[in-house]
């Protein structure tokens, strides 16, 4: 089944922080050391995408669950809360 996560993220209200709150610490580790790259699958907002020679981080649509921070097999993701008031704001919750 192909589902476009963008269609879901489009429903949400985001106030995007210009300063990214997620950073891959060592890009090489993802490409050379990480076999399964599970972040490409388990992230509920598809923040992590495989490009030609790196994994890109579309932090703007992050749902702030925190899974990548502890689910990266190499703990290679630095993840903070967005600046106060930024990021997702639930309408219903």
């Amino acid at each position: 089944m192909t589902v476009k996560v963008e269609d879901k993220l489009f429903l949400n209200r985001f106030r995007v922080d210009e300063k990214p709150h997620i950073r891959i610490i060592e890009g090489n580790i993802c490409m050379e050391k990480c076999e399964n790259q599970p972040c490409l699958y388990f992230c509920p907002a598809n923040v992590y995408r495989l490009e030609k020679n790196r994994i890109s981080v579309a932090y703007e649509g992050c749902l702030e669950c925190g899974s990548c921070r502890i689910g990266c097999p190499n703990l290679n993701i630095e993840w903070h809360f967005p600046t106060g008031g930024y990021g997702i704001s639930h309408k219903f919750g």
Partner: protein
Amino acid sequence: MQENYDVAIVGAGPAGISAASLLAEKGVKTIVFERGEYPGAKNISGGVLYGHDLAAIIPDFAKRNCPVERNIIESRLWFLAKESGYSLSFRDRAFYEKQAFNAFTVGRAKFDRWFAEQAKVKGALVVCSTVVTDLLRDSNNRVIGVTTDRSEGDLKAKVVVLADGINSPLAAKTGFRPEPKPSHIALAVKEVIELPEEIINERFNTETGHGATIEIIGEITQGMDGIAGIYTNKNSLSVCIGANLSDFMESKVKPYEMLEEFKQHPMVAPLIKDGQAKEYMAHWIAEGGYDTMPQLCGDGYLIAGDSGMLFNALHREGSNMAMTSGRFAAETIAGALDKGDFSRKALAGYVSRLQNSYVIKDLKKYRRFNAFRLQHHELFTTLPKLGGFAAQKMLTVDGVTKKEKQKTIWKEVRKKISWASLIRLLWNGWRSVK
């Protein structure tokens, strides 16, 4: 911020606001920091809250425009195979007469904001759009306040309550609660699907104001240890599905694809037909249980709610434990303020209050439940498949004798699961909930 406060609370969710409400009521100078634009902006639950624990904070909550969606009068359990499923449900008149608001649904963006308003009326200060980034400590490593992401954002307080939820980089940074292991949490996604109130009434066989919850396990989580839920709101349904993060890391299942497949299940699709998706969210569920609880108090601080891993995965109770732990935190702090002692020893009454209540007693009772599910993935694979197969065979009227059908079913059962593993499953299952 130069002012000093008696109590600083991190997080304006059910735990933090419960504590703030009761402390402010006693005249304690209390400040709450919330990272969202408003209380509830970052919060989700399946959507069920419990009147008993809320009434201990706001006794007349029903008269104070508490944003209740529907009072739950019926609970359903579903056990689903891919294309089929079993349903068991319980409804009781008591749940809308004598025991109204025993359990009710809410949208947390609305409820948490309302709840925080009640605390503000009593005198608590709630500061939103502010992340607490660290804790202030003195030379003896006692917690004496918080650091925020505002300019000049340090604030001193006699006691700090950490009520910042399950996803807490602060807890990890300060070392007060190590990061959860992926197997100790579930990652859940939720969609709010709008439908007219009357349509929901018809589909769930309820009257206006009354609602139902459905808790679901089976093949829907694609072999992972997980759970789904459907909860009725006034004019929407909350459709949730989640699984253990360690299983997600192995399976390559995408949460949003799993959600869409779940929505197409023959027992789910008719309930949400023609509904409009309004919001899509994700959150952790603290599933690790009793053995993953951190030390809940120390010199100058207390940990309440999800942040302390206070969650009962079997009965999907968490918001009630958050409120009650917030209440115990307030009672303990009030006593400590009287004595002017904020050491770990002086705050230890918080832990004994929790130990003597249903909160830790229930967590202790189910301490093996998380490990049980992770050791028995057949609950989410073989068993629902066999269950579906058996019922399908027995209910098909095709001239084959029932004895013959029974034989076919047993043959299939024996092929898929050994007696030994079935007995082990039952024994371990019993032990995990007894």
